[in-house]
């Protein structure tokens, strides 16, 4: 049995958790076992149906009023207790802010190893074999775990969603006892970024800007281009971030975020080794740069040599036409 922790935000299961569940389903089929979804919270049974639609063979709900708000300590306690009893072969998490916060605590509580931010999962000798980029993508590690259950976090946007299946099953609810004083830290407030943009790690299309943009005001050009696509975000090179043109949460590359969107636009980005490491796993890369020798063209599938201030608005215009058709 492969279990997947289903992360919820604003009363909805996150897409990256459904991706992890889809992958669990595929690997469980290979291993001849089941894929189950595990929800943690207070009164979240209603979210079980979404997990069945994504292919879960079973849904477990770990419930306690003390788990209404996310806390790494409370959630880890619930999940580790469940895993010790249910004995799944593996527990997978999406490598999101919450998954990265929570999975190590669960691993430490169970005394088992964890593989972070996987981009591939295979079955080898009855166990899972994980592939993950290290050095922000400058190298690729494959590994397995000697300990059980096998714990891993899976990078968002990499694993395809399975087809929705009509199906329902039993939701098994388990009441969790969270002892008084066991949770010494908790989330008190969630602050949304005003722009409402989605995070670069979750975006399917990223439009990134670098020093070639010459100033913060010119990121507007990129926002216009990005706005043409659903699930898009604006990214940036380190030099643009360090110049104070845009917040560091937009930075792509080593000391920023590693991303794998379907389409990546690098606009006025020269292509420093740190940036290339963070975006080279994008499916299609488009570069716009006035310097034909810029290293970014070495990794780009398509490039335009030209003045971005001329090219980008024209590109937006053409894309708008194409997308409207």
């Amino acid at each position, binding site marked *: 049995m492969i279990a997947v922790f289903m992360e919820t935000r604003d009363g909805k299961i996150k897409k990256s958790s459904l991706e992890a569940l889809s992958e669990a389903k595929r690997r469980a089929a290979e291993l001849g076992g089941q894929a189950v979804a595990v929800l943690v919270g207070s009164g979240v049974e209603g979210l079980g149906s979404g997990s069945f639609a994504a292919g879960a063979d079973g849904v477990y709900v770990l419930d306690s009023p003390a788990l209404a708000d996310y806390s790494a300590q409370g959630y880890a306690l619930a999940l580790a207790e469940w895993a010790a009893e249910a004995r799944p072969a593996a527990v997978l998490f999406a490598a999101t802010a919450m998954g990265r916060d929570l999975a*190590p605590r669960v691993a430490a509580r169970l005394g088992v190893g964890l593989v972070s931010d996987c981009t591939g999962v295979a079955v080898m000798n009855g166990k899972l074999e994980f592939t993950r980029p*290290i050095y922000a993508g400058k190298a690729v590690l494959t590994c397995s775990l000697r300990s059980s259950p096998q714990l891993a976090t899976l990078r968002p946007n990499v694993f395809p969603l399975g087809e929705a299946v009509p199906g329902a099953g039993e939701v098994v609810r388990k009441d969790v006892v969270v002892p008084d004083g066991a949770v010494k830290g908790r989330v008190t407030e969630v602050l949304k970024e005003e722009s409402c943009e989605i995070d670069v790690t979750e975006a399917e299309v990223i439009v990134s800007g670098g020093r070639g943009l010459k100033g913060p005001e010119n990121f507007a050009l990129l926002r216009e281009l990005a706005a043409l696509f659903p699930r898009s975000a604006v990214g940036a090179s380190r030099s643009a971030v360090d110049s104070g043109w845009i917040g560091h949460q937009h930075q792509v590359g080593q000391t920023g975020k590693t991303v794998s969107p379907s389409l990546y636009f690098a606009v006025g980005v020269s292509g420093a080794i740190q940036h290339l490491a963070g975006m080279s796993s994008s499916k299609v890369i488009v570069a716009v740069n006035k310097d034909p020798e810029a290293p970014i063209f070495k990794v780009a599938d*398509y490039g335009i040599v030209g003045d971005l201030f001329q090219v980008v608005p024209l590109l937006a215009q053409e894309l708008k036409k194409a997308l409207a058709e």
Partner: protein
Amino acid sequence: MNILVFIKRVPDTESKIRIRHETKAIVEEGLNFVISPYDEFAIEEALRLREAHGGVVRVVSAGKDESVAVLRKSLAMGADEAFLIKDAAPETYDGLRTARMIARAVERKFPGTDLLLFGKQSVGADNSQVPAMVAELLGLPQATVVTKLEVAHGAATACREIEGGAEKVALSLPAVVSAQKGLNEPRYETLKGIMAAKKKDIPVVTLEELGFGADDLAPQVEITGLDVPAARQSGKVLQGDPADTARELVALLRNEAKVV
């Protein structure tokens, strides 16, 4: 306030990574090693907290003898004391192994610590595991990937980065906090700091002292392969009239790449 900062020695981010396939390890010769960049934010935050609240900043690194160089740099930045947990093992990519060493060291060597600061991940292994694992092993609360930290009266409030925003986490101390870029602007060492750091002793803590036997720290991660990713082929580069190139590019994205 008693603050512990944990740092790691890593190749700088300019490094081109090469692999030694027979040992499934990266080639270290010729690389320039530095304090992992996120760890510098942790050191800086510790120094600022000391300036505001008083106390002691101790910096700890687990690793080979060579890690003394990054510990000395942290002393030059202004840390009061530095310690090396001597671990001669090659990189295991196993966060729990490191977390167990650190948690044991905190219990045995550094009782009375109020705050444990880490970088959000080491640049290299990119695990983001050790801070939360240490917190769990010690039964402490945590805030990871933190861009703002306030400490007062035995409690802390941290802002941690999440997708499309931030969340505020309230923690009682002692607690574990891992630093994200944006938390602060790390200071440079001063000449005076460098001179003073040279004279300081960096005590070594052995794994035996921490009560670990030869097999106690066997890694749970089994490395089956290590390679560099396949190089991307450079594609079609268009030059000429901006309107023509834009039109041509969109046609390619639509008909060839099929992403539009």
